[in-house]
């Protein structure tokens, strides 16, 4: 009787593809909204630009009846490699993303740790304060920084009124302004995953470390910090990757010498109307960004296994 029921159950399971659907949904999503658009971009990146609508020549063309020519243009990639402008922009983006991530960590780690250590009933309100800026539009918040940082802005007014400086500080349209804007905007993305990691850490491990002679600073360095590496990585990636392609902040707060790949891409697309080159730039950026992401996934899996 039982065997018969079990067999029926298995039969139903194989007939109803429920499990497959659930597992397949994210893959379907990824294919539709990531792989497919990326293939379009990749396709355009191999085309030649032209002054027409659309502003590129398709590389698969039908010349006569049924005769198809395929003419791939790798010139865009070659140009990215040869022209220093693009390499500098990639490097500039990398530099800004790396330094901003570092400052986000410097400010965000103590924040996340303080929230994780605070009494349970304080944690939710404190987290809300971290998330609260999202209630206002990103663009408006970046514009607000212009008002704060400009020569006759709030910051300079304040510093001059307390007599710390007599000349206004030149901050707006400098790299400093970009760093301030980026760190401010992306800090929550780092704090949240880091908090999630830190709050789960077992407090007994710190007691054990103390028991074995580790002073508080050593306890943090040897126990808390290594154990929070997955959170540090996740948070850093959530800052680093989008900042690499950031356009709005360098455009609004940065100066003419702020060279970032997102800004360059915008120029190629909308000013120079060179879609193929812009697409090639986008493709290269994606490949560059996938490397650290794969590394992180690998490390995370290892860490998850240890905590099991």
């Amino acid at each position: 009787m039982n065997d018969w029921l079990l067999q029926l159950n298995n039969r139903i399971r194989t007939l109803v593809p429920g499990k497959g659907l659930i597992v397949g949904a994210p893959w379907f999503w990824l294919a539709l909204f990531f792989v497919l658009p990326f293939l379009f971009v990749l396709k355009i990146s191999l085309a030649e630009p032209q002054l027409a609508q659309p502003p590129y020549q398709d590389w698969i063309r039908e010349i006569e009846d049924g005769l198809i020519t395929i003419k791939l243009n790798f010139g865009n990639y070659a140009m990215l490699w040869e022209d220093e402008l693009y390499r500098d922009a990639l490097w500039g983006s990398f530099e800004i993303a790396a330094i901003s991530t570092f400052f986000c960590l410097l400010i965000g780690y103590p924040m996340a740790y303080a929230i994780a250590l605070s009494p349970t009933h304080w944690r939710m309100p404190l987290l809300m304060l971290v998330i609260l800026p999202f209630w206002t539009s990103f663009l408006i918040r970046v514009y607000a920084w212009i008002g704060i940082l400009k020569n006759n802005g709030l910051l300079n007014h304040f510093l001059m009124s307390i007599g710390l400086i007599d000349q206004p500080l030149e901050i707006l349209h400098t790299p400093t302004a970009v760093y301030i804007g980026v760190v401010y905007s992306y800090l929550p993305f780092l704090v949240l995953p880091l908090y999630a990691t830190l709050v789960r850490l077992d407090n007994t491990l710190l007691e054990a470390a103390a028991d074995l002679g580790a002073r508080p600073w050593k306890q943090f360095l040897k126990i808390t910090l290594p154990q929070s590496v997955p959170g540090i990585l996740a948070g850093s990636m959530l800052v680093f990757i989008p900042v690499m392609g950031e356009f709005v902040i360098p455009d609004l707060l940065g100066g003419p010498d702020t060279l970032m790949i997102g800004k360059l891409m915008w120029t190629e697309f909308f000013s120079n109307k060179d879609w193929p080159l812009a697409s090639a730039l986008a493709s290269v950026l994606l490949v560059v960004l996938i490397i650290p992401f794969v590394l992180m996934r690998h490390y995370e899996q290892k860490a998850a296994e240890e905590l099991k």
Partner: protein
Amino acid sequence: MTQIRPASSEQPWAAPEEEPIVRIDKVTKTFGSTYAVDEISLNIHRGEFFSLLGASGCGKTTLLRMLGGFETPTSGRIYIDGQDVTDVPPYLRPINMMFQSYALFPHMNVAQNIAFGLKQERMPSALIRERVAEVMALVQIEKLATRKPHQLSGGQRQRVALARALAKQPKILLLDEPLGALDKKLREHTQFELVNIQERLGITFIIVTHDQEEAMTMSSRIALMHDGRIEQVDAPRRMYEFPATRYAASFIGSVNLFNGHVMSHDNDMVLIHSDEAGSDLLVHHSQPLNPGMEVTVAIRPEKIAVRDHHSEDPNSIHGVIQEIAYLGDVSIYHVELPSGKRVQFTQSNVLALAEQPLTWGQEVALTWNAYSCGVLTQ
């Protein structure tokens, strides 16, 4: 109940002139308005295997954590080796603790876990390696040196935790329910091993447990705790044979308690009348008791014997067998006395498949020796 520890003639607690290694002086710990530990004073001596025994919530873990430095007493002082350590943080105490959850560092392998405490002392690395190998050999985990904690079984983790706590050669080792997570077979085996290690190293062990059998088996002395206070401190054998309070008598092993009042007391023999027992009870007791005093007589089930017929002598009761629990080695009989009081007694099952002389509904007469029972006044 087996006892591993040989009945040693060394009884450091009987030598009051020696400075105890741990002196707990009127220590109280409150959480909000609840008293977790209520003015406890206790001396523990060098080389003891000391158990803090009690039901959950009795304050035994809080007391242990105060010794480790993880909780600060609300009032009172703690001295280790004559030095006041009440306000000394855990990382400066000459004490190590084995945690109930083992608290192994998941990102370090076994050898690194064990070496952690030694590294904090800035010991040269060659010496660290030597010491780590030594303790790993002591608890027989040499082969696990490069494994991570998640690759170990429960029993292996327990050994790593023990090795890590022993590596620094502390004056005192605190063990919080060290065998709680092991299965019964492994637990019994490990009990012997813990005692062997303790005797070999001569370190003072202070162990917290809720398992009376575990405490009886391993300890040189037991402190039985109840509601944040100590009920009794004694060697296991004395704890069992001469419980000081009704709680102590009923927490450790099984016991029959008869309420009654003192009729007379001479030549160290107390005559007590108990309506519950339906008989006069004669008990050996050296402390003076006043006639008319309300007392309780405690008698262990295995000390009760069956006799042929009922007599009117003291320590003679009779009743009807209500229940029989066959445990293999012994059987437990529940007898209802004419007063309605239920009494337990045990009989060894000496003969296999022997015709059981005792059966349900049978009337039995029981008796015991005046030296086998005790008088409780608290």
